């Protein structure tokens, strides 16, 4: 989605008189003067911490006592760690539930919000507001709503004659409730993206299909949906990353409980590194997550390029 402004080839190929050495140096310096600050930022804030984290991932270190280098042992241990396996399972389930739901809901809401009706701006704002609210606030609010004893949802259930549920305090329900809260917060994002995409669909295509006798549903199925495909690749990758990195919501609702049933990989990394001070082991887990995310993204991009939809 990023725009790059490349120098036109003409400017580069403009013939230059071979000048003395000093001018070449000056040109280099000018170049670095432009690129320098940004390079420093990237190196200092991204590459340096990433490099250090990699070194730490090869060590047994608690941040206080001297570290011992252990090579790849942290990674070997991770492969056999039942907690890591469980956390991966939870992350996978969360992603599988969250990504398709947020896309389907996003498309449905975008179509609904693409109508010419009164107060449409207000409705659009309503859908987008939860996305702007901080996940921490969302989590705390949801904690009240889903409280088993005093929460609003159980109150509604009581009126409907449905037995009261434990929600976030039940190991079998908590992850689904977290997913639901995450959806509430994130669906505004996919909706806005799809709304923009819908408005980009050339009017002629829709009109041509209508003239050819296609009904509303057929237009949607054969014109609108294919036109949304490139955007869907983007939202799929983006929402997958969101689901895999979900932390603040879990921290404010369940802290990974009950019985670690909402402990995702990111939360487990936090636990390891900052609760039990196993910085090396936590860094190794973070690198595994990084590798998996990278791989997943590459697979989606490769697949979409093969299908002819270029988005990245």
């Amino acid at each position, binding site marked *: 989605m990023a725009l790059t402004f490349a120098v036109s080839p003409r400017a580069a190929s403009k013939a230059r008189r071979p000048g003395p050495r000093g001018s070449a140096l000056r040109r280099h310096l000018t170049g670095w003067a432009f690129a320098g600050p940004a390079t420093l930022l990237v190196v200092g804030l991204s590459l340096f911490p990433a490099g250090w984290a990699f070194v730490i991932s090869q060590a047994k270190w608690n941040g206080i006592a001297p*570290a011992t280098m252990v090579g790849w042992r942290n990674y070997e241990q991770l492969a056999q760690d039942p907690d890591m396996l469980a956390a991966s399972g939870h992350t996978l389930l969360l992603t599988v539930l969250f990504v398709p739901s947020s896309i389907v809901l996003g498309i449905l809401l975008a179509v609904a919000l693409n109508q010419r009706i009164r107060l449409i701006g207000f409705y659009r704002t309503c859908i987008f507001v939860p996305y702007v609210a901080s996940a921490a606030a969302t989590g705390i609010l949801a904690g009240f709503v889903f409280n088993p004893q005093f929460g609003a949802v159980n109150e509604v259930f009581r009126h409907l004659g449905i037995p009261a549920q434990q929600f976030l305090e039940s190991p079998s329900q908590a992850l689904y409730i977290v997913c639901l809260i995450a959806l509430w917060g994130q669906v505004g994002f996919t909706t806005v993206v799809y709304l923009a995409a819908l408005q980009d669909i050339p009017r002629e295509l829709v009109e041509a299909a209508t003239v050819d006798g296609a009904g509303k549903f057929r237009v949607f199925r054969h014109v609108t949906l294919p036109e949304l495909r490139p955007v869907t690749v983007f939202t799929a990758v983006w929402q997958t990353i969101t689901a895999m990195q979900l932390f603040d919501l879990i921290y404010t609702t369940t802290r990974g409980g009950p019985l670690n049933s909402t402990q995702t990989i990111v939360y487990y990394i936090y636990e390891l590194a900052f609760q039990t001070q196993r910085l090396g082991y936590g860094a190794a887990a973070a690198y595994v997550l990084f590798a998996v995310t990278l791989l997943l993204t590459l697979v989606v991009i490769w697949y979409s390029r093969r299908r002819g939809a270029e988005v990245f």
Partner: protein
Amino acid sequence: MTDPKRALAAGLVLTLSLSACMGGTGDSGKDAAAGYDPNATVELTWWTGQTEVAEATAEKLAAEYHALHPNVTIKTSPGASVADELLTKLSAGFAGGTYPDISYAFGSWAGDLAASGKAQDLTEFVNTPEFKWTEIPEAARQTATVDGKVVAVPALVDNLALIYNKELFDKAGLAYPTDQWSWDDFRNAAKKLTDPATNTYGTAYSVSGSEDTTWHLWPLLWQQGGKILDGNTPAFASPQGVAALETLRVMAVDDKSMYLDQTDEKYLPLFNSGRVGMVISGPWALLELKEAGIAYDVTALPGFNGDHQTVSGPDLWVLLDHQDPNRAGAARDFIAWMTSAETDAKWNLALGNLPLRSTEAHSPEFAAYTKEWPGSQKFFDNLANAKQARPTVSGYAQLSRNVGDAIAKVLQGAATSQEALDEAAKKSAGLVG
């Protein structure tokens, strides 16, 4: 653009210099305060780990000390937004070379801080007769000692005791708990106090899996004659450990008389609102109890076979070495003053904590304190029941997390006591030491 070999070399240099950041300074064996000149002008940094009222009191005491010793200036700050964060701040400080002279620390960090090589060895200092080391409770002294070396001075002592709601006992027609209660008595009372119709529970337990979950089990284990560690090997999955955990399990699973708190934060407010008959907690609960205006009283923990020992969770002042004998010596003198019976009365007693030294029991401040905080006398007496300390070894945090998970599983009926403790012991093997 750049020569790839040069980039590789630069990366290697970066990596090597990074690994250097992760090392600690070795123990030189020399006393940090050797050659200390008490009249030298020094500036000390003090991380109190306190907030609000306590922080204001700390600043007042630092100013008072400066008035007594004009050559010593103490820069006082909380150090972190909450005391839990201090370890992370210290670890960052060690890596960056800017850490305080004195910091608050939880007892469970002692092993790690000792291993850092940055904590002053205080063994000789505290054993000077002026310091009166033995006035501080035994369990707190053990916590400050790692491998026979004293690495910190206790800052705060506490312990777990049984707090009960008198009104609920009266309503159920039950006799109040006594210091001689057995765990069977506790279970029977919990069962009779429980009333699903009014959402009332006999007792409560945190199943968050944190240290709060874990350390409530240790007194039961010790009363049974069990041990947490045998050398560096986890020893809690013994028959004694299973018996201890079973005692809790029957209440949670069979009797359903135990409210299971998924956080650490709900069970005390529930007790304060009259929904729970008995909780096991420490003197820090007194402040909210008083605000809730509930009719309560405190007794020693129930016991097995007449053993009523409890667990203590002391906090520490750790003194960090900056290779400057004057700073090291001044920090020691300040902490000796801070933890003296006279100053501690203005510090711990004024803030509602238990007194640090046994001699304070005869002070007028202590008399005022017990009057102000009902039940505090019992907590003070209960210090004598704190006979063992949690292990001060590096790796305890991970062991605690594994045991906490095991307890949470058992109390929620997801595993048997033996299975869960065996699994926790297996996971913790090799982490300690």
